[in-house]
């Protein structure tokens, strides 16, 4: 991969002011009641908590390295873009079937009721690529809890922060589904056990595991049969000729 853009979040700084949700919704024209990002809330154990009783954890699509959502998409309308490491949606190809939605352990995807296609965070791809602007959630954050950058480029702050904190960084995942997310939480974040196992819808699962090899087999047998029949025709003289010969 050429670049890998990632988000590094110090969730201990988050005050749940919702600026990131507002900014994202604003610049990406999201429909009512649907969000590309979220803030998860957890109560800390007063005995063990350092300073605070509650913890706020911002999140969004993790632009995973082995994304289960991409696996679940039959057309590859969603795909991992090799150029910047984000998981993108080709809106021309997406028909909004929604197979990818339960396939995401983080619930990062939703179906836009107006466009009827699936949508999710793309690290403000439009704003970055056309106008060189940061993701809106990063710019707006009052406590600057989010650091964004290419973690393959040693010159970026993101790379450096990640390296400095490599022994403490937390990546959220479900034990049944490791997708190698590109969202890194510094220090202790909570909650940690909320990602769900990826759930690919049954028809897609069937296609992935069994239907494709099955159909390949059937088609192969069919073609083989046709070839055998054709072979017989080519390499043996016509039936009538044989019959004639035998009857002579």
């Amino acid at each position, binding site marked *: 991969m050429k670049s890998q853009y990632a988000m590094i979040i110090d969730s*201990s*700084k988050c*005050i*749940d*002011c*919702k*600026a990131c*949700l*507002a*900014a994202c*919704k*604003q*610049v*990406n*024209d999201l*429909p*009512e*009641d649907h969000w590309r990002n979220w803030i998860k809330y957890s109560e800390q154990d007063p005995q063990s908590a350092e*300073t*605070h*009783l*509650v913890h706020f954890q911002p999140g969004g699509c993790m632009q995973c390295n082995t994304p289960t959502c991409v696996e679940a998409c039959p057309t590859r309308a969603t795909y991992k873009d090799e150029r910047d490491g984000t998981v993108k*949606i080709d*809106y*021309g190809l997406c028909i909004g079937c929604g197979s990818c939605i339960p396939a995401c352990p983080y619930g990062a995807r939703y179906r*836009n009721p*107006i*466009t009827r*296609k699936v*949508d999710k965070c*793309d690290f*403000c*791809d*439009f*704003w970055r690529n*056309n*106008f060189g*602007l940061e993701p*809106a959630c990063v*710019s*707006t*954050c*009052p*406590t*600057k809890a989010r650091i964004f950058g290419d973690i393959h480029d040693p010159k970026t702050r993101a790379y450096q922060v990640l390296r400095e904190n490599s022994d403490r960084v937390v990546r959220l995942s479900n034990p049944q589904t490791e997708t190698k997310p590109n969202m890194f939480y510094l220090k202790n974040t909570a909650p940690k056990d909320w990602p769900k196992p990826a759930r690919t819808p049954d028809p897609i699962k069937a296609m992935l595991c069994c239907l494709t090899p099955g159909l390949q087999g059937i088609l192969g047998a069919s073609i083989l049969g046709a070839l055998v029949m054709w072979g017989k025709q080519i390499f043996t003289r016509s039936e009538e000729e044989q019959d004639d010969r035998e009857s002579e």
Partner: protein
Amino acid sequence: MNNSNKISRRRFLALAGSGLASAGIGGHLGNLKARAEDTLPTSDNSTQEPGNKDKLESRFSFCNICPNKCGLIARVQNNRVVRLDPNPEHSKSRGMICARGNAGIQQLYDPDRLKYPLLRKGKRGEGKWQRLSWEEALDLAAKKFRDIADKYTRCGWWFTWGADAQAHFVHRFANVFGSYHIANHESLCFWTRNRGFLDVFGEGPPYPDVLNSKYIIMIGANRFESLITPDSIDLMTAIQQGSKLVVLDPRRTKTAARAHEWFPVKPGTDMAFILALMQVIIKERLYDPEVIHKETTGFNDLEKHVRSYTPEWAARETGIPARDIRRIAREMAKAAPAAMVYPGRRSSTYTNSTEIWRSFAILNGLLGNFDRPGGLLARQDLSLHEAKSYLAPWYEDNPKERADAHKAPLMFEDGAMQTMRDAVINEDPYPVKGLFAYHTNPMQAMPNREKTRRMLENMEFVISVDIKMSDTAWMSDLVLPAPSALERRDPASVKQAGSAGACVYTRDPVVPPLFDSKSVFEILQGLAKRLDLGKFFDFGLEEYREEQLKGMPEVKKALREKGVYNHNGSLYGLYKDKPLRTSSGKIELSSARYKDKGLDPIPVYERPQEVPQNSFRLVVGRNACYTNSNTQNNWLLLQFVPNNPLWINPGAAKKLGIRDGDQIKVSSSVSHVLTVAKVTQDIREDTVCMWSGFGNISDGLTLVGHKGGSVAELLEDHIDTLNGNAALHETFVTVKQA
């Protein structure tokens, strides 16, 4: 921004080629584009959807949703604002804008925006309007100004405004027109804080150096939700760097939940806590005697005064354990002078709020933190030239004093909203019959809405200059549409805050004014011309600003290139070897001036009223996602705060048979509202809380409608006895199933 909202080539071809009778498909084309909050009804304005790659321009401005005035950069495409980003250069806002700042675009393109002048047709509050041209509107307004001035003197008019960069032009107009009446929203908010600190330090408001403070006691203030820049940001930084935060609040706000210690203090008893802290610090000699000697006066009186205010006594009053009070006093004194009682902002709580806040100020004085790192900072020496200065005319027939003069011993000269309201209703001492309101909404901002209604009924002519049909505009005679701050040019203003120091900011239009709106400056100019006062307004704003910034090329350059001028002046030691502006020249731990007036020289504790059986004390609070009635009808912010349920403790709710989400009736001695219950552990059993701004009567706010209950409707009309500021936490309510 993705392109999913545009009609894709595939979609178009597919629809064109489908050929089959699919009327449903055609009907759904509308869904691809329409979002009511984004489209504008007139053809004057671009309905260009964002998401295209046309040239993007970046223009500086400042947010106007709340008093913070955070610097922003507006991204504009084809004369339409498509994105708002923070201005990273702005030291006060530390390069951020919050959810409300982002929602400035929704305010700009609110489908319910006022578009042209409106004149009331039916009864007041009926909602029947006729459209006027600006000529007609200003002619009529000028006539009314004259008529009321002729009948009742120039003081028959009252001018009131909100926190806005053009508001001082309303003040100018009031002055040259000749009215003393300029009571405004500040007397519903922080007068008591300003008074308390002013009388101790000789200046107010105080500027807390949160960033460098090692020990912060926050009483009632809720900086992680009631955002004030830079304090909210600096508080998080300070905590991460090891500073300690102690919060006193009857609610478990986000600030309380993120503090090192939170005490659900009994509402109204804060002074007891402060007095006890002082008792411990003095008794155990934890203060710096040199600082006390050099910089303060009245220490001996203070020492005597607090002797009996022991932690044990305070524990009985506040519910905070005595040993904690003692410990906090010691910890605080140890961290001093980089320790503070945070001054907060809204101090419109109790009838003795001035004294409560004065006790905060005195403790800060005792800690020796004034004009020092981590303490309270002095006002910086950054001022602009007074542009287009004038001498206001003298009007012979004017009364001697304001209508609400002397209603409280320590009022500020502007006059106070609630006392003015009484004067208007009672026509006592003389009638006040005209109201000019700009960027303010008394119907939702003042307690006891029925009284505000009566006040407006009592007026002969009410003019509202606003961007939307607020409840006050709804009750007005003449409604004049103003542009949002993003469409305006403003004079330069100075603002100082916390650890960031002072800055200069201004505005130039990011997009041209929409519809037929006019800034209040233009309106006042038009009125002035018609009232033979034209010479006081015969200038343009650019000219005005030039004069303000005369001889300040570095300020002009910074404004042009960075969108803001950060003073970066020295924060500390501004009073080194200089006397304070108090009568003694020092920090007044005991006030001789109060004594002369027959008031307590040092605050005396007053126990708050007991909450009656089966009742609750109603408190108001703030939320990071909306700003009172200013953001009502904001599509984006309504996603976060769509309603204002009543916070009620589970124990209390259970006794009343109320479950979370139930419809309830909340009643006070003046009125009742219907709303919804939010049962939560985060509030004391004897207290309930509602956000303000909901329960609008206006039919002109279609996105929010009449949702929720109006806190203004419920609150009783209490004021601070010393100063006249609103006291919004003195109302008791009952709650039952609706």
